[in-house]
């Protein structure tokens, strides 16, 4: 057993860190107010910076390190990808979750050769931004209950239905859409994945405002939208559930979570070392010291868990253990929330201040208090992740559920 990186990997890691250190100096204040994850959709300036960074990744050949060269990737392993992701999040840099980390991965594994050659290069170059067409008003945790239909008509599919929680649809070019191609099917059996252009007639995007009023989420309505049959991923109907379950796992193995929390904690440590209250630095208060030490423990063991998950992915195939991915996801998501809770608490009265001239650390603590709760809901709630851990990781029996009509 060897936890050490190779010489080449160490050199690459340094190169990544140097790159991010320099590039992130160019980030506008609006970017820092919203941050590297889904909140990047909130401001125009933050979004422009995201697009700039996607372009820079492409120029360096780092946009998709683990993808084969013929599809625009760098042909390296997931370990290099992991090192990149970690450096990226440590410096708070933006990342293309939906194109690179989710849909692109699924296309690599499940799409036809023609689709791979057509769909992947514009994701790598940063030209095309994707959003995710999964959840519906009555299909959240129970995603397989979705009712959006795609009915074959000649060389096209006619799509009708409604998607929700579509992060960034208002800034995206395309959506990877999960729809029911077999109208007589139930649950996961009759679903398919489509690569859909959001400019097609019949698509309407409406905002859903976050609790603080910000615009991240959308509802996307489909009314008789005609999608070319060539956009059915894999070319065969009703294979969508298998593809989607794998895609979920691609999303869940997130080293970025731990690197992101590390960054928050490091900034916060600087804050408590330089902020005085009641005659002493916050860092001198034993209760505050204890709480910070506890977060450090959680972040370091969580990071180790994420590495182990990635190693399992690396040494097996792309369809690695769903339990490990869920463990990493549930631990990382809840850790993000704990960091937000502890930082808002320790900041005292300033913990409530939103981005403004009065806000310490760009208002990141109060933003985190509101946004980080979403990490335990989006991408599968913590309750669903724990079910998966119990079913797959521990072999617990699955409770029978009522079949939907």
């Amino acid at each position, binding site marked *: 057993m060897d936890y050490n990186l190779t010489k080449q990997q160490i050199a690459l890691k340094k190169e990544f860190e140097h790159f991010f250190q320099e590039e992130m100096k160019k980030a506008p204040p609006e970017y820092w107010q919203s941050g590297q994850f889904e909140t990047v959709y909130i401001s125009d300036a933050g979004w422009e910076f995201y697009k700039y960074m996607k372009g820079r990744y492409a120029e360096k050949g780092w946009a998709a390190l683990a993808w084969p060269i013929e599809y625009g990737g760098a042909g390296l392993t997931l370990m290099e990808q992991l090192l990149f992701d970690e450096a990226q999040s440590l410096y708070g840099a933006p990342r293309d979750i939906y194109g690179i980390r989710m849909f692109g991965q699924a296309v690599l594994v499940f799409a036809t050769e023609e689709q791979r050659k057509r769909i992947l290069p514009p994701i790598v170059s940063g030209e095309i931004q994707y959003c995710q067409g999964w959840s519906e008003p009555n299909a959240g945790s129970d995603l397989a209950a979705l009712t959006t239909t795609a009915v074959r008509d000649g060389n096209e599919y006619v799509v009708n239905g409604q998607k929700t929680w579509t992060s960034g649809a208002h800034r995206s070019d395309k959506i990877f859409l999960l729809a029911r191609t077999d109208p007589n099917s139930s649950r996961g059996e009759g679903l398919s994945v489509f690569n859909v252009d959001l400019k097609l007639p019949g698509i309407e995007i409406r905002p859903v405002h976050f*609790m603080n009023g910000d615009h991240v989420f959308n509802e996307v309505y489909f009314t008789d939208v005609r999608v070319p049959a060539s956009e059915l991923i894999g070319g065969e109907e009703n294979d969508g559930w298998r593809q989607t379950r794998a895609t979920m796992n691609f999303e869940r193995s997130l080293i970025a979570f731990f690197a992101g929390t590390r960054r928050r904690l490091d900034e916060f440590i600087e804050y408590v070392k330089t902020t005085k209250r009641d005659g002493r630095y916050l860092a001198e208060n034993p209760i505050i010291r204890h709480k910070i030490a506890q977060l450090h423990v959680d972040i370091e063991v969580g990071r180790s868990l994420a590495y182990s998950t990635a190693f399992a992915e690396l040494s097996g195939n792309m369809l690695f253990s769903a339990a490990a991915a869920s463990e990493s996801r549930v631990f990382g998501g809840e850790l993000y929330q704990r960091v937000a809770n502890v930082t808002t608490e320790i900041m005292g009265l300033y913990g409530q201040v939103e981005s403004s001239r009065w806000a310490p650390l760009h208002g990141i603590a109060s933003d985190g208090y509101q946004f980080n709760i979403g990490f335990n809901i989006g991408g599968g709630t913590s309750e669903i992740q724990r079910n998966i851990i119990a079913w797959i990781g521990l072999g617990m029996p699955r409770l029978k559920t*009522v079949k939907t009509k």
Partner: protein
Amino acid sequence: MDLSFSSTQKLLRDSAAKFLSAECPYARVKEIEDSEQGYDPVIWAQMADLGWLGCALPEEYGGTASSFVDLIIIQEEIGRRLAPSPFFSTVVQCSELIRAGGSEEQKSELLNAIAEGRLIMSLAQYEPEASYLESGIKMQATPQGDQYILSGVKMFAMDANICGKLITAARVPDMGVTLFLVDADHPDISISKIPTIGKDNACEVILNNAAVPKSDVIGEVGDGWELLEKMNAKAAVAKAAEMVGGSKACVTMAGEYAKMREQYGVPIGGNQAIQHYLANMLVAYDTSYSYLYQVACMVDEGRDFALEASTLKACCNQNYKFISERAVQIHGAIGTTRECDISLFYRKAKACEYACGDTFLHLDNIADSLL
């Protein structure tokens, strides 16, 4: 022992609940939160008509001489409906300071105006360092003839943007912390609203050599901290009542949602994970609620309740946070939206946590008292 409410108290609760749910439904709460004023003058006038604004005051100043428990009932209902208003700053904090420390002249002028809804007040205690302690009050009040000259910055002064007068805590050389009445339209002060999680009227108040007549000192020079400390202990109990009311709403709404929302063909409330969340939330609510009224009765009996006030506030800080966070989780993604009412409570829980002392302050108070 009799833990039941009197019939007039039951009536008060019912009428408060009816009034607030009719005049200030959650959709209206959101509109008020988004407005610059952050309160609704019509609702404020109605609160005056109902006698709420004088509920803590003796009859000779236009009050109804109600018990502290009555005030707690109103606060609990305000918390349940999240009704944004300057009730806490004006009635719970400032009118109590004037009642306890004001001169006869100040009382008859200001308290009557408060009770009739003609005067909104704001307490300017905290400063940029954000300390809750006496040593945190550093603003200087320099005597000059028959005036004091006040200079410095106050932070998180609630409702300063809409108030007529502020009570400002400042330090008189050699005498200590003193409370001053300052007109909000004084030419040498500027007030700006700070954006907060609670979308409330937290303000920054800058005093730039503002002259205040010596007759506008509340209480004796140097008595300010004692007045503040006593008032804040009471106010912490009243804030806890707001939090208990909000907690109750969260448990109810999350429970109803869990029964209604179906996934996998069954209501999500059928899942043991959700049931355990709800059970833990109910336990947290019931413990806060019971303790709240125990402490409120101590206040009415005139007993020393400083330790109990800290115990209660520390408990509510943690429980409201826990309950509102689980309530959002049970609602799932919809719970994180502005559209969904439950998110109002999650934000408000955080704002309430800082009012009249955060968890650190109250745990410190408890430790000091025990050790």
